[in-house]
């Protein structure tokens, strides 16, 4: 296994991540790229600030990787990179890549991966507007239920 789990302050090298994960066994690669939107509920966003508990975030991504392999044994490679720091509109905050021999598994596992990452990986974001800033509220309690 050569899965990749990284937390970085630098811009995410999506293409590089994809190339590092591609093997001859793969027939399908599904990539999720979470990018900073220009507004939230109609209010223009200036930047997003991400904060990470880095060593724990890496552990949680690795745990999520194991969970994915249990659910979808046909997955070939898993890659997740989450960025932290200050991000501008259209910059990527998180990229998740799943490869597999056939496409259905890659789609399902990639969708699951981002849903779970948002529940379990200790990263927080604050929206910065022209006239103020607000921490985004995470969905409470889902970690407790599913991972302890």
């Amino acid at each position, binding site marked *: 296994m050569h899965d990749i789990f990284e937390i970085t302050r630098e811009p995410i090298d999506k293409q590089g991540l994809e190339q590092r994960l591609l093997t001859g066994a793969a027939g399908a690669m599904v990539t999720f790229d*979470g990018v900073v939107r220009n507004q939230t509920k109609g209010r223009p966003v200036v930047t997003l600030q991400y904060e990470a508990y880095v060593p724990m975030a890496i*552990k949680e991504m690795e745990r999520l990787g194991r969970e994915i392999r249990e659910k979808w044994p046909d997955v070939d490679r898993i890659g997740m990179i989450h960025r932290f720091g200050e991000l501008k509109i259209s910059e990527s905050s*998180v990229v998740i890549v799943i490869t597999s021999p056939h496409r259905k598994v890659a789609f399902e596992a990639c969708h699951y991966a981002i849903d779970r990452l948002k529940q379990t990986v200790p990263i927080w*974001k604050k929206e910065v507007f022209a006239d103020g800033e607000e*921490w985004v509220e995470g969905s409470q309690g889902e970690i*407790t239920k599913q991972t*302890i």
Partner: protein
Amino acid sequence: MSVEAIWIKILLFGACREAAGIEELDYQLAPSSTAESAWTELKNRFPDLARFDRSILMAVNEEHTGRDTILSSGDTLAIFPPVSGG
């Protein structure tokens, strides 16, 4: 505090860190203290944390954990709001 007092490290993240105005503290607790009792002491010291009482999550040594976990000397207790990455 007794001679058996334990020392732990507390980390705060996100809105909790901002409300307390601090991200890391070394803390002395009575033996067999729980994560919950550490949180109670923390709220006494930083009253702005009280509003997170119902929502916070905790991790000990980088693993999600419940509030009733008993702490040992040298543990790192992280306290944070529900995660919101992605």
